[in-house]
């Protein structure tokens, strides 16, 4: 499991993030480390940079981490969180341009097969134009 790319799901909604993680786990079991976070620092709709950082750290391995986001703010906050990581980790994190739910399932499936971070990214990003 620690040999596989990890998955972080960052939604504006905690429900969406948690439910997407459930769907991912149903598909890949514990072959892939998955962390979900959603909601602003007050728990309302939005995202939380500190929570994103913690989620990335919780699934980090040298294989890398693919971060799935929903809308603008989730992407910007995730990119910000990545910049706060140590430099050697930063290059091993990819914020994907892919739909959050469908992309997370595809990314995790590819990761479960031992795909590299680039392969995971490419597979998920095929879902976006």
């Amino acid at each position, binding site marked *: 499991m620690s040999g596989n790319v990890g998955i972080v799901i960052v939604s504006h909604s905690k429900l969406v993030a948690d439910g997407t993680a459930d769907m991912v786990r149903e598909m890949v079991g514990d072959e892939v480390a998955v962390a979900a976070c959603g909601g602003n620092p007050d728990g309302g709709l939005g*995202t939380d*940079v500190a929570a994103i950082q913690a989620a990335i750290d919780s699934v980090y391995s040298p294989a890398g981490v693919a971060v799935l986001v929903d809308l603008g*703010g989730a992407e910007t906050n995730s990119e*910000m969180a990545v910049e706060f990581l140590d430099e050697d980790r930063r290059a091993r994190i990819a914020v994907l341009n892919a739909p959050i739910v469908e992309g997370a399932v595809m990314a995790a499936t590819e990761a479960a097969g031992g795909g590299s971070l680039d392969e995971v990214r490419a597979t998920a990003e095929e879902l976006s134009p």
Partner: protein
Amino acid sequence: MEAEMLGKLIDQVSGAIRDNADDLTKLDQAIGDGDHGLNMKRGFDAVTEAREEIIGLAPAAALQKIGMTLVMKVGGASGPLYGSLFLGMSKVMTEPPRTAGAAADLLGAGIDAVMSRGKSTTGEKTMLDVLVPVRQALAEASGLETKDALEKLRAVARDSAEATIPMQATKGRASFLGERSIGHMDPGARSSALMVTAVCDALEGEGAR
């Protein structure tokens, strides 16, 4: 003296955001998700909470602390963007700017950080459509009396925010509305104008240039 000025700036800006949070939220309801007021208030309430710590810091560290607080607390796209504005300024800040030109350079460093964080530029109906003209006005203000310069900056901020009304948004949530984003002021442009005005109000009569 410096700490006092910084405290005044924090109070003035935070107060302006707090007093106008409902207005910002209303603007965001029209072309976004209606949280900009709440987001900004959450951010500046946290800055206010850290006020005593911040005013004890050297200028660069103070800007960094404000930027990080906004990044961590705002919760919307405006968080990392305004956060980057302050973090970008903090990186070039050595001592508080004593001329309009120095202030323009400082703000310019912040704007560059916003642009690279947001992958955005002017004309996209965002905060940048206020920040960039304000920087320009600052750069052109060196010949003016302080009072006149501040008056000018407030007018540019207000007019630039107004000028976002006929724009079509191409960045942020408002871009989802396509042409229907036309006819409304951008909430981030409005919050930028509020902040610029609040800074001018704080500097008024302080003899700052």
